[in-house]
């Protein structure tokens, strides 16, 4: 029978099935960070358990690290906040106690787990990947079942190398046609969420396909899969093609020699079969997607940059109308205001959605030769990993940003969730390349607008949103 990509990967990892439909799934790779793991390690210790397969795990601190170059040089000792320092230190202690590989704070391979996994080859096509972080869906771009789990499950995976879960339904999101210049992977996924809503994918594994997805780079596909969870789906994925294999080739932990040949033979089967049946189908025409800007407090509250802030009356259900009214109140926006008139206080370019080298390049291309608007208090560029940072510096991109008055930071999650010192003040509007515009996500009372890197960069120059398709790039 024709199978979907998800069906194939599921069958490949199925260890045991129970009568009620729950199943034991084998986990190939487990990514660990400081925030959702301490209680899991503590649980192992209390029960006197050891990790099942130590080599399946890899850790790095990211959520809570300082991105300030000076504070960073001082290592953990320089972390001013004591609870943060203890949490970071606890990750190192747990990894050394249990013998788990960790990319330490100032190792070049440190970074946001979802950037580090693929770029080191620790995540490979055909795997199952879990992490105590909902944006684990990112790794699905490599033809992987990757999903976020809670801390109890982190402990469970450490102890058993398995996850107890249930097979999801299959959803196909087809994005056909061709993107207009200046429109990016981020705009695709925001448009998808605007269309199906934040619960549209609940209970489903989403496969993204169609000409526009095939045309994306692997990094672009990661931006799309990253936000599957914002559409309610724990799993987002894209089939393996030549781009996937080219991406994986030669990475630090990628197979070599005959193992590589065997691996690609297997990887080339990782796509949905002709005629495979999906439980749900969503179709979008890429050529109709414009640069997107979120105006509310949920990732489905998104419009094209040329539109106006909507009114609660534009929505059908009472619950939705109230939600939109509350969001507009929180955001300090009135219905009918052109999106382009929204003034920004800060700009954040980073996060596991958009902090890879292509994102940094796209932002640099816009910024080059311009100056940050005086009304913008801060514009930060936070590369996703030490490797991304290094690569960008090799290309001289850091200098472009600094010359324009943007800050060039050390890798970490930073203002995506504002656990560290990088945050918005109350009422401040931020053009952000991250993935969540929830109330106070980026700082108490802060107002987030989700956009692509190029859109965020342009907003940092002009102080308000502009359609980046009209941007004049300086050579």
């Amino acid at each position, binding site marked *: 029978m024709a199978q979907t990509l998800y069906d194939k990967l599921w069958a490949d990892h199925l260890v*045991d099935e129970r009568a*009620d439909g*729950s199943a*034991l799934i*084998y986990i*190939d790779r487990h990514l660990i960070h400081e*925030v959702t793991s301490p*209680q899991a390690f503590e649980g192992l210790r209390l029960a006197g358990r050891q990790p099942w397969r130590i080599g399946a795990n890899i850790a790095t601190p990211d*959520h809570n690290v300082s991105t300030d170059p000076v504070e960073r040089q001082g290592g953990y000792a320089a972390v001013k*906040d004591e*609870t943060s320092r*203890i*949490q970071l230190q*606890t990750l190192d202690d747990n990894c050394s106690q249990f013998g788990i590989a960790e*990319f*330490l704070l100032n190792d070049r*391979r440190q970074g946001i787990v979802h950037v580090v996994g693929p770029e*080191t080859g*620790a995540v*490979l096509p*055909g795997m199952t990947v879990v992490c*105590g*972080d*909902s944006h684990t869906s990112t790794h699905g771009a490599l033809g992987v079942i990757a999903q*976020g*789990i*809670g801390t*109890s*499950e982190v*402990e469970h995976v450490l*102890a*058993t*190398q*398995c996850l*107890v*879960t249930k097979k999801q339904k299959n959803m196909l999101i087809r994005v056909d046609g061709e993107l207009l210049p200046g429109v990016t992977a981020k705009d695709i996924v925001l448009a998808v969420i605007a269309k199906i809503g*934040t*619960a549209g994918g*609940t209970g489903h594994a989403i496969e993204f396909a169609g000409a526009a997805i095939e045309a994306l780079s692997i990094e672009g596909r990661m931006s799309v899969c990253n936000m599957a*969870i914002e559409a*309610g789906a*724990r799993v987002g994925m894209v089939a393996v093609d030549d781009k996937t294999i080219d991406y994986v080739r030669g990475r630090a*932990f990628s*197979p070599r020699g005959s193992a*590589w040949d*065997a*691996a690609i033979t297997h990887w080339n089967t990782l796509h949905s079969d002709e005629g495979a049946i999906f439980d749900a189908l969503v179709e979008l025409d890429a050529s109709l997607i414009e640069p997107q800007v979120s105006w509310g407090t*949920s990732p489905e509250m998104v419009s094209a940059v040329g539109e106006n802030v909507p009114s609660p009356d534009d929505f059908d259900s009472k*619950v939705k109308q*109230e*939600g939109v009214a509350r969001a507009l109140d929180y955001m300090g926006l009135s219905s009918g205001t052109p999106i382009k008139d929204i003034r920004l206080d800060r700009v954040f370019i980073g996060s596991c959605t958009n902090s890879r080298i292509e994102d940094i390049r796209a932002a640099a291309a816009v910024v080059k030769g311009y100056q940050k608007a005086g009304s913008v208090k801060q514009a930060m560029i936070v590369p996703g990993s030490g490797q991304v940072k290094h690569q960008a510096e090799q290309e001289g991109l850091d200098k472009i940003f600094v010359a324009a008055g943007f800050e060039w930071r050390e890798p970490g999650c930073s203002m995506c*969730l504002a*656990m560290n010192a990088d945050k918005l003040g*109350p009422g401040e509007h931020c053009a952000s390349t991250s993935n*969540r515009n*929830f*109330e*106070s*996500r980026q700082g*108490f009372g802060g107002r987030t607008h989700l956009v692509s890197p190029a859109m965020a960069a342009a907003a940092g120059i002009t102080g308000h949103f502009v359609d980046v398709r009209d941007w004049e790039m300086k050579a």
Partner: protein
Amino acid sequence: MRAFKQQAGLVAPLDRPNVDTDIIIPKQYLKSIKRTGFGINLFDQLRYVDEGWPGKPLEERELNSEFVLNQERYEGASVLLARVNFGCGSSREHAPWALDDYGFRVVIAPSFADIFYNNCFKNGLLPVVLPEGIVDRLFDEVAANPGYKIEVDLEAEQVILPNDESFAFEIDAFRKECLIKGLDDIGLTLESEPIIRAYEANRRQQSPWLFDVISPEKIS
């Protein structure tokens, strides 16, 4: 894990859709390396007017008197009545920990986000899905009747109203059993150790590259 069989308790209504886990417990509290103590910061941004941080003394906090949990009539509530897509967003298990630490044992909503739903079961917290129409009605009844209590019987899969009217809900058999018996998930899975070992040996043979040891020394 604490077992859950049935719960009779006061119902507190949280009337907004898409309550995300950042709202349930904001990130600044995620720096803790413990599982307990999150209850006083449950719904921190809704419950207090000022910005909170870990260790901020309660007497320095300004309560938002309009927020439902600050109203006397809902004091001691153990059942949270919520709207669609409750628990969306971040996978943080601190969300069920905070609800539990506050004293909630049951959350009723028309739908839950997947990861949150799953996390509840690991912590003896019962998420109950009821049709939207019934949830609407419960919101009305709670508003109209101070001290409104309901009973949730997991064994019978029933929500029972004060007038003895009852509604059935569904739950996976395996999850139900774990919750009723308070079973340790890991211990249960380890009973399948031989099956896991056999699977693993086979996988190692078929895809040996997946078993290359990750070591941080390996230079890219």
